[in-house]
């Protein structure tokens, strides 16, 4: 009988996470909270009973934070931090991540909350929605906030691509299932596109990762079946967006 190798208890990344935030205490104990927007939507009921906002939640958030803190000198809160766009506390977290807005249907309170957040200087990262139909739905919701504000391409000469890593190519990051099959796109002929909305002073306030799924790469980076090329790109892009959002 072959001798069994001794069982080694590998620490999971969760065991290294710091204390949870006291909900009674004002935010601020940590300078940075990776914050996910809770918004109203329709159709697909997402992860664990949540809407589309909860896609990859919370594993993606926690895993992203672990890597983020290794790469960047950032005193960030270790845990997920989801908050409704209608919650007045939203403005305590100047960077907010919004995922799968293709089926988003914000309430008026959410529209007002997000507009006030952005007008005050908040930064919104949008990710993981695909195809024209989802774009239209997303754009419709943006138009409810800013009827006249243009949504424009964020070209590769923008400083967001060099705030930490030098990113020279925009890649289409696949969801885990597509990646296993060797593909990247979730819709026929969809090209990755990074677009943005600027405030009246010309400052980027919304970055839109369209036809790509950074969140899945963050969530499944430890999975050997997930291509390193895409998880690397997703983390680089994520780090750049945060460093940029915290300095511009």
């Amino acid at each position, binding site marked *: 009988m072959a001798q069994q190798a001794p069982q080694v208890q590998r620490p999971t990344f969760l065991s290294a996470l710091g204390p949870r935030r006291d909900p009674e205490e004002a935010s601020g104990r940590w300078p940075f909270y990776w914050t996910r927007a809770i918004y109203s939507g329709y159709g697909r009921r997402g992860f664990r009973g949540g809407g589309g906002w909860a896609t990859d939640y919370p594993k993606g958030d926690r895993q992203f934070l672990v890597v983020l803190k290794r790469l960047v000198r950032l005193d960030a809160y270790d845990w997920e931090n989801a908050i409704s766009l209608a919650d007045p506390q939203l403005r305590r977290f100047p960077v907010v991540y919004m995922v799968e807005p293709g089926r988003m249907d914000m309430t008026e309170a959410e529209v007002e909350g997000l507009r006030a957040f952005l007008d005050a200087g908040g930064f919104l990262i949008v990710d993981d929605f695909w195809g024209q139909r989802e774009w239209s739905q997303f754009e419709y919701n943006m138009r409810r906030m800013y009827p006249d504000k243009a949504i424009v391409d964020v070209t590769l000469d923008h400083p967001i691509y060099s705030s930490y890593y030098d990113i020279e190519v925009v890649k289409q990051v696949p969801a885990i299932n597509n990646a296993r099959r060797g593909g990247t796109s979730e819709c026929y002929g969809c090209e990755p596109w990074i677009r943005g909305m600027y405030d009246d002073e010309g400052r980027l306030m919304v970055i839109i990762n369209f036809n790509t799924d950074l969140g899945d790469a963050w969530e499944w980076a430890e999975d050997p079946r997930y291509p390193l090329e895409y998880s690397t790109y997703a983390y680089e892009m994520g780090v750049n967006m945060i460093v940029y*959002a*915290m300095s511009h």
Partner: protein
Amino acid sequence: MMDRIFEFLFKYRPLVFEQGDFTFAAPGSVRLWLVAAGLVGAAAVASYTIARGKSSVTDRGIMAGLRVALFALLVFCLWQPVLILSTVVPQQNFVGVLIDDSQSMLLPDEDGTPRASFLEEAFTPDQSELLAALSDRFALRFFRFSDVASRIDGPDELTFDGTHTNLGGALDAARVELSGVPLSGLVMITDGAHNGDRPLSEALVPLQASGVPVFTVGLGEEAISPDIEIGRVEMPRAVLEGSALIVDVVVTQTGFGQLTVPIIVEDDLEIVAEEFVELGPDGEPVVARISLELEGAGPRRVHFRIPTQSGERVERNNARTVQIEVRGEREKILYLEGEPRFELKFMRRAVADDENIQLVVLQRTAEGKFLRLEISDSTELQFGFPSSREELYQYRSLIIGSVEASFFSHDQLQMIADFVSDRGGGLLMLGGRSAFAEGGWAGTPVEEVMPVVLGEPAGGDDGFFAEIAVKPTPAGLSHAAVQLGQAGDAVSARWDSLPPVTVVNPISEVRPGATELLTGTSADLSDDQVVLAFQRYGRGKSIAMTVQDSWLWQMIPALEDQSHETFWKQALRWLIDGVPDAVEVVTDQEQVEPGETVRLVATVGDSTYIEVNDASVTASITSPSGLVEEVPVEWTVERDGEYVVEFRPSEFGEYEVDITAERDGQTLGSDRTYLNAAPSDEEYFGANRHTQTLRRIADETGGQFYTPDNVETLPDDITITGAGVTLVEQMSLWDMPFLFFLMLTLMGAEWGFRRIRGLV
């Protein structure tokens, strides 16, 4: 009145007794006279002792005493008491008469007559007793003086158009001019409003040494009432364009009571601020603090005025004009941040549209990796935080965010301290996990630069964390940096409306000499948190802002609330305000009149701000009409790096002075300043009679102080107190009416006593 009574009783004025030496003029030995007096006294006493009758011993004693006193008085008179005086020889001595020829002499007194009318009364030939009395005894030499003094033939040459009164200069000029003649004294006729630059004592010492007394005649009223005067305006000489300025205006009133009046501030005829001030009690100055902002770079003349009130006696002292240079440069501030933080993002946003501030950012994003923003070229900060003084000193101010002290080498820490003390830069330290004591700054060279006291680092796994409400301290309420664009009571209200923020560095004490401008309160804290404090350190200043998330003042309030932007704009402008350049030039006066001398003072340092004494410094002076004059500026020797040259503007208008300093063919730096040559209103400020000054001049030189009411004794007084060619004179005292009255009193007393006691 008392002097007149004295003179009636004692024959001479008190001054004669002060100046004279008392003695007896009767011939013979004193002993003989004493024997005679003793015999007479003894005979008187004996006659009473021997006498019998119904008188008691006490009665006889009193009568004997009165009689002895009477005899003693007679003996005193027989001894011929005299005063020995040294008096000047008539017509052998000179007296200089110095007459104030400035504008203030035309100010009317309460009865409506100008001060100068005294001169007409006192110095009209063939009509004036004073002039006649002086002319009989002395050769008179007249001088007029205002900012300079000059000889005149007589008071009819006075024009009363001088714009300054330089008492010391006038005394100097007269002393020098009359140094070759026997001089009995100087008579100075003025209101005493000395507004010259030179201390008066410098002119008095030579007069004391040469024994020349000065007799001062004070004109005008001690207090002009009713009147309002802007005494002083305290404003910096240079300010960055668009900065909030806090200006102190000192206002004094007499006769109006505690009236409330507006102070109107105008820049180029446009009203830029108006503030109401409640005047203080008579003669007590009050300080009005006015907040204003000046737009547009260049030299400016800011006009402060209080509208003339009904019945006011002097109108021209209700306004002051102050020169200020509004600088339009883009000043560089280096902001070092130890990690990505929202504080940086929102501070950048707050000052993004400020064309005068270049906020250069060096943000550490990972170990040895930095994000550089707003750099001037690709080489700037390419190796991280500056490691040489030349590199660091190119910035005017330094902001250090959440960065641990161990990030720096010891040399760099010392360099930061020197940046403040030697270079004169501004240092702002922000709160954060790696700031202050928690960042290991205690014990470093920078610690003593900080305006706050660092305690032990907050311990525990979670460290220190508190949410605080911020409000201004009393000092903060009047400080430009924390006004939030408001004024008066609205400042506190605006701070109260802001959301609470958080701190992770417990700091509750400022250093001695530091000023706390913002304080934070929390139910979780036993001591209030020092939120914003500053101190001067060496040539520069250091500021501590202990909050870690002031950006909440931007994110939480309504969009139209500009508190965060305003706070940081003003704070950063305050940070760079007054930070010197390596080469600078100033004038010793803000405003002069054509013909007046002004000193240009340049300070010259190299790129590390070490004073340079072997530089070649040139001033290029451009007159209002465009004439350019180049003059060398010489090292003073007295002070390292200080170069001085004097020049005299000849035209009215604005002069532009450009200074360039070079060494070994290399330009060390250049600077520009402005000088306004304009008529001065100085004579209308503090235009009351300055009795104390005039008394001091007289007392310190051995002269006397007079007013027009008692000046008629002046000729006699100079005669007995003056210097020059003198002779000794005896002035007899035996015939003083007082002695006669005393004798009658003694005789009457004895007679009355006898009647009362029935001894007649």
